[in-house]
């Protein structure tokens, strides 16, 4: 899923301090799972903003909250069609995709981000999410034991590990696993250490961010 983290409320207040009517817009998908931008967090942020306005003596301020099934889908974003233009600003606490799609759809309404979108990751345990994928557009996991050096090696080495791997940990942080140690352990476990011996070709990064904004177009599923 897309993992996001809450922005400090002070930063959000700085965006909306001159607004009088604000909609906090949550999303029921990834940001709900990572507890940064779901219904619960929309309520908490809306309360914090109401408290701010009250403390400032701004009595005519109105903060509403709403959580959509998804903000990355026309269908669900249409649900606020009738009310969007009533607000001075929408604070979207979806990922960066949701913030942008909301802004694109409601062209004349100011939309602010309420979270920092961090990475594609997994829930390791409650309150701990870690990165697994950088969406490079050309998956190589078949050759690396199912562990991704692009997202998990600090130098994204294709022929690692570097000389800084020590006791299975990365040189930049003793708490961070060395991705190449994990890859080698996995290749050993599945009896495919032969894959380690193969020199990895230079990567075509044109399917990554480097190639410009990307799209996936599937004529077979288009209506």
């Amino acid at each position, binding site marked *: 899923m897309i993992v996001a983290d809450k922005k400090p409320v002070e930063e959000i207040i700085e965006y909306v301090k001159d607004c009088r009517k604000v909609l906090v817009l949550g999303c029921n998908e990834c940001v709900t799972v990572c507890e940064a931008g779901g219904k619960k967090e929309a309520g908490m942020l809306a309360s914090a903003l109401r408290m701010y306005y009250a403390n400032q003596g701004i009595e005519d301020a109105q903060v509403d909250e709403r959580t959509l099934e998804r903000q990355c889908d026309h269908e669900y974003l249409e649900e606020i069609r009738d009310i969007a233009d009533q607000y001075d600003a929408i604070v979207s606490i979806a990922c960066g995709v949701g913030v942008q799609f909301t802004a694109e759809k409601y062209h004349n309404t100011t939309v602010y981000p309420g979270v920092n979108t961090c990475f594609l990751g997994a829930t390791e345990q409650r309150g701990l999410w870690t990165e697994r994928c950088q969406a490079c557009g050309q998956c190589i996991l078949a050759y690396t034991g199912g562990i991704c050096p692009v997202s998990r090696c600090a130098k994204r080495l294709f*022929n690692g590990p570097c000389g800084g*791997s*020590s006791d299975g940990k990365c*040189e930049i942080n003793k708490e961070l696993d060395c991705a190449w140690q994990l890859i080698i352990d996995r290749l050993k476990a599945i009896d495919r250490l032969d894959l380690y011996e193969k020199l*990895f070709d*230079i990567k075509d990064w044109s399917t990554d961010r480097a190639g410009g904004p990307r799209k996936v177009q599937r004529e077979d599923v288009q209506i």
Partner: protein
Amino acid sequence: MSAKTPSKLEKIMAAGHLGVTSECGPPRGSDPEVIKEKAELLRGCVDAINVTDNQTSVVRTSSLATCIHLKMMGMEPVLQMVTRDRNRIALQSDILGAASFDIHNVLCLSGDHQSFGDHPQGQNVHDLDSMQLAWTVRKMRDEGRFLGGDEIKRPPQMFVGAAANPFADPFEIRVPRLAKKIEAGAEFIQTQCIYNIDKFEEWIRQARDRGLTEKCYIMAGVTPFKSAGMAKYMKNRVPGMDVPDEVVKRMSDTPKEKQAEEGLNICVETIQRLKELEGVSGFHIMAIEWEKKVPEIVERAGLLPRPEVE
């Protein structure tokens, strides 16, 4: 192995002599005199001088510009290139730039992570990794082509090197990893500083068993300790460094005013022991900010005079 490039370092090792290199870290400023002073200390006692590329991710004068200064002084540089700061376009461009000054040695590295340096908020590139960079230089040289496939007019003539750390984890893939670097195109290897000689000998033995020392010149890396404090720092704080307890103890048991001398003794003894080891083709002496001691180390280790080659 016979020499394939005009590199003096390659010719010396191809002739069966032990090669000797040292290194020169460029200054954090633009004064060329700093470079020249350091390099003069090494004149006549080494075959080539490595020039580091923003080592420890701290901004310094560029490796290429410094190599040109050395070249103009009549000395032979080894251009260190890290893949951290430049993409494949910039790397190939700088290889051509170096070749235009007839710089004949390159050492391909990934580079320390930028979080160690003075610009930890910077982006890192790693478009290629160190092995892929070695492969790139070989393609440019041997096929006369860029990575993109176009022809190079006057291709670079570079002796291609890479680093190896026999002591990093996991140890079991250290030799397979060396094999990969050689397959990628590395013709010489400069190793991490050696203090754990037993472990290094085991690594060389495994490399010999795979025939790797017949395909590549292994230059053993050594760094003299200036003090017991430095030995402890290297043991505990430098990632991938293996300093055995007895070496630290030897330094600590030496009176403070004699520690620098003892550090040099350890360095010289290491070279003398490894000189006899089959598969070692030379030495890379990294006297960090202590270049003035390199002539003494080389002399005491019996590596002078340096051979002349055509």
